[in-house]
C-alpha cells in the first residue's frame, strides 16, 4: 500500500501525485518508471517517476487522464492508498555533458522530461527546452522546467500561449541559431516521430522515451515489444529510451492501438457510471 501524500491538478486532465514509496525514492534515477495497480481489479499501468525525495521517501508522478485507470487515479485524493507500486523500472537515462542539449516535451511527455532536464543541467549541459501542447491549459510544469533550463520556449497549436505552432517549429528555431549536440524528444508517439524527423535533418543524435502498452514491466510478457533497428526489443527492460532514428514508429503506433475498441468502450462505461454517481 502506498499512500498519496499530495495531489495537485495542473489542468483539468493532468495532475501531479506524490506517493509514499521509500525504497523506490531511494533507488530511482532520471528516466526510471513505476508500474502501479490501483486496486484488486485494476490494470497495471506504467508511469514515469517525474521526481523523488529520498529523505521524505516519496516519488512524484504526473498523470494524464486518457482512459479508465488514469481517470480512477485522478479521482483519488490525498490520504488514499494505491494497492501496488513497483519499480524503479527500465534503464535510467544516459546523462553526460553533451554540450548543448535540446529537450522537447509534448503533452504529458513533459513529466518524464522533468528529471532528465534537471540531470542534464546538473551535468553541466547548456539546456534548451521546448514545451508544447495543443492549448494553454495543456502546458504543464513550466516554472519547474524554466528553473533547470537555460532557455525555455513554449509552443501551442492554437497560439493561446507562447508561440503559435507545433513542437517541431520550436525545435527548428533553436537548432537554426544554436549548435545543438544532442536532443531528447518525449511525448505522444506521433510527436516523437515528427520531432525526431526534424533532428534527423540536422544529424543531431536523439533519444526518445517510448510509452508502449505494458503488463509486468520486468521483461516477462513481451507486450511492450517494438522494432528497434529491425530487431525486436522490450521497452520495459531494454528501454524505455532508445535512439530515435532506429525506432519503427508505425509499428509502435499500431501496437499501441491493440486494445483501442475495448479501452474506449470501458472508458465510456466508466464516465457514465461516474455521471450517474453524481
Amino acid at each position, binding site marked *: 500500500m502506498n499512500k498519496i501524500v499530495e495531489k495537485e491538478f495542473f489542468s483539468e486532465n493532468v495532475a501531479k501525485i506524490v506517493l509514499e514509496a521509500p525504497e523506490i525514492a531511494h*533507488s530511482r534515477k532520471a528516466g526510471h518508471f513505476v508500474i502501479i495497480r490501483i486496486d484488486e481489479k485494476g490494470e497495471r499501468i506504467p508511469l514515469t517517476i517525474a521526481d523523488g525525495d529520498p529523505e521524505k521517501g516519496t516519488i512524484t508522478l504526473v498523470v494524464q487522464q486518457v482512459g479508465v485507470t488514469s481517470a480512477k487515479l485522478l479521482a483519488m485524493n490525498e490520504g488514499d492508498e494505491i494497492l501496488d507500486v*513497483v*519499480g524503479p523500472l527500465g534503464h535510467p537515462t544516459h546523462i553526460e555533458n553533451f554540450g548543448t542539449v535540446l529537450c522537447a516535451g509534448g503533452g504529458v511527455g513533459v513529466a518524464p522530461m522533468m528529471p532528465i532536464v534537471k540531470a542534464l543541467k546538473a551535468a553541466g549541459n547548456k539546456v534548451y527546452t521546448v514545451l508544447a501542447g495543443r492549448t494553454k491549459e495543456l502546458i504543464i510544469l513550466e516554472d519547474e522546467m524554466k528553473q533547470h533550463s537555460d532557455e525555455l520556449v513554449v509552443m501551442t497549436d492554437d497560439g493561446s500561449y507562447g508561440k503559435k505552432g507545433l513542437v517541431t517549429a520550436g525545435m527548428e528555431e533553436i537548432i537554426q541559431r544554436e549548435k545543438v549536440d544532442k536532443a531528447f524528444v518525449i511525448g505522444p508517439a506521433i510527436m516523437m516521430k515528427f520531432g525526431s524527423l526534424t533532428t534527423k535533418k540536422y544529424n543531431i543524435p536523439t533519444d526518445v522515451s517510448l510509452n508502449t502498452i505494458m503488463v509486468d514491466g520486468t521483461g516477462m510478457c513481451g507486450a511492450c515489444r517494438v522494432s528497434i533497428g529491425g530487431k*525486436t526489443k522490450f521497452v520495459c*527492460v531494454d528501454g524505455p529510451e532508445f535512439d530515435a532514428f532506429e525506432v519503427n514508429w508505425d*509499428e509502435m503506433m499500431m*501496437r499501441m*492501438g*491493440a486494445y483501442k475498441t475495448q479501452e474506449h468502450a470501458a472508458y465510456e462505461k466508466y464516465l457514465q457510471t461516474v455521471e450517474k454517481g453524481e
Partner: protein
Amino acid sequence: MENIAKYILDSRKEDWRLELRKSMKAKERTSLEREAMPAQDPHVRNKNSEEVNLGFTEEMAIVEAHRCLDCPEPTCTIGCPVGINIPTFIKKIESKDFLGAAATIKETNALPAVCGRVCPQEKQCELSCFYTQKLHKTPIAIGHLERFAADYERNSGKMSIPKIAKSNGLKVAVVGSGPSGLAAAGDLAKLGYDVTVFEALHEIGGVLKYGIPEFRLPNDIVDVEIDNMRKMGVKFRTDFIVGKTASFEDLSAEGYQAFFVGSGAGLPRFMNIPGENYNGIFSSNEYLTRVNLMKASSDEYDTPVLYGKNVAVIGGGNTAMDSVRTAKRLGAERAMIIYRRSLEEMPARIEEVHHAQEEEVEFMNLHSPVEYFADENGRVNKMRLQKMELGEPDASGRRRPIPIEGSEFDIDVDMVVVAVGVSPNPIVPHSLKHLKMTDWGTIVVNKETMQSSIPNIFAGGDIVRGGATVILAMGDGRKAAVGIHNYIQEKVKAG
C-alpha cells in the same frame, strides 16, 4: 540418497505394512484396473474455468492404493526427483490413514497438492513404477493419489504446520516466489531463520499463479500453502524487485546473511519471423498473465485481452497446451496447436494433451509458421505455414524437424500465441556484475549446495536449469536451504 533408500526400506518392515501386504494376494492386486480420474465433461469444461480433474473419492483412492505391491525395491521412488516415500504414503491410503499419507509426502515435498496435479508423472515416478517397467501395465496412479492425500488434508482443516526450530534471528532473503523460492523459504523457516521472500509481481506463487491456469491448478490451492508458510513465520514482500527496488548490497546492509535466487525463466522467446509484432500475436506469458493474473476475461477487472475465433498456438509444451485450452474456453471456434514435430515428441504432460484433444483442440503437427499477415489495423488475419518432416535425432534425442520446401500454405487466424520457450530472467544477473553465468544466461551453481560464484548467493529452479519443472525447482530450493544453512553456520562459527 543412501539414507533415503534405507529409510524407505526400513519403513517397509513395520508391522502394519507386513500385515497389509499379507491381506491381499499380489495376483489380486495386479488384476485390478487403474482407477480413472473423474473429470468434467469435455464439452462443458471447455467453456468454464473450473478444474478439469475432480479428484479421486475415498473409495477410488483406496482401491487404487490396493494395486500398489509395496515392492521390496520400490523403483518408483527413484523416479521422483525429491525422493518421496511413495509406497509408505500409498499404503497409508490403503489403510485409510489419509492424514498420515499426507504427512509422509510432506516429509520431502512441501507442495503435494501442486505436484500431484502438475508433475509429469509419466516421465518420473510412474515411469519407473514396477507396473510400467516389469508388468507392462498402466502404472499406479501415484500423482492422483498424492493429490488425493493432499486435498484430503486441506479439506479436513487439519493441515499440519511443520515443526519450527527456535528462531536464530538470522535473516535470509529469497528472491522470487515460484516453487523453488517457496521450497527454500519453507525449509529455512523450519531451521529457525528469519526469511523474507521478495516477489516482483503483486501475487505470490510465480508460474503457479501467473502461468498455469485455474482449470489445471486452482489458485486457492496455492494460497493455502502460502498461508501455511506465513504461519511458519515466512514474510512476503510483493512488488519488490531485488536488483531494482533495492540492490543485493542494500539488503546485505540491512542484515541479510544470504540469498536464494529463484527468479525463474520468465523471458519469452519469439521466432523472429516476419509479421510477428502484429496485434493479436502474444507470447504465452502475456496471454496467460492477462487471463490468470489480471483476470482479463472477467468484466469486473480492468485489464483487457483479445478474443479470437481462429486461434493458433505455436509449440507443444505445457505452456502451449495451457494457452490453447484457455483460448478455447474464451470462445475460440478453432483452437489449434501448431507443432513442428509429431505428437510423440511433444514435451507437454500426456494428460494435458489428452485433455486438449477431448476439448476439441485441433493438432496441426509437423507444421511451423513462417510469416504472419495483418489487416489494415495491424491485427493478424493470416499465417503462412510450412510442412515439416522428421530427420535424424538431434542433441535432445528427439528427431529433428526438417522443413519441406514448397509446402507452404496459408490459414486464417485472428489470434496467435507464441509458446516456443522461455529464457532465464536477466534482472538478477544484470544487477550482479561478477556472478558467473552460462552462455545461455543461467546462473552457474555447485550442484550439491546450489551456491553460485558469489559465496552468499545461492540459486535454483528455472534460473539455473533454464525452464524445467515445478518439482525440480522445489528440489533445488530444498538443497539450497541446506547449502545456505551450512554456509551461515560456518560463517557464524568463524565469527
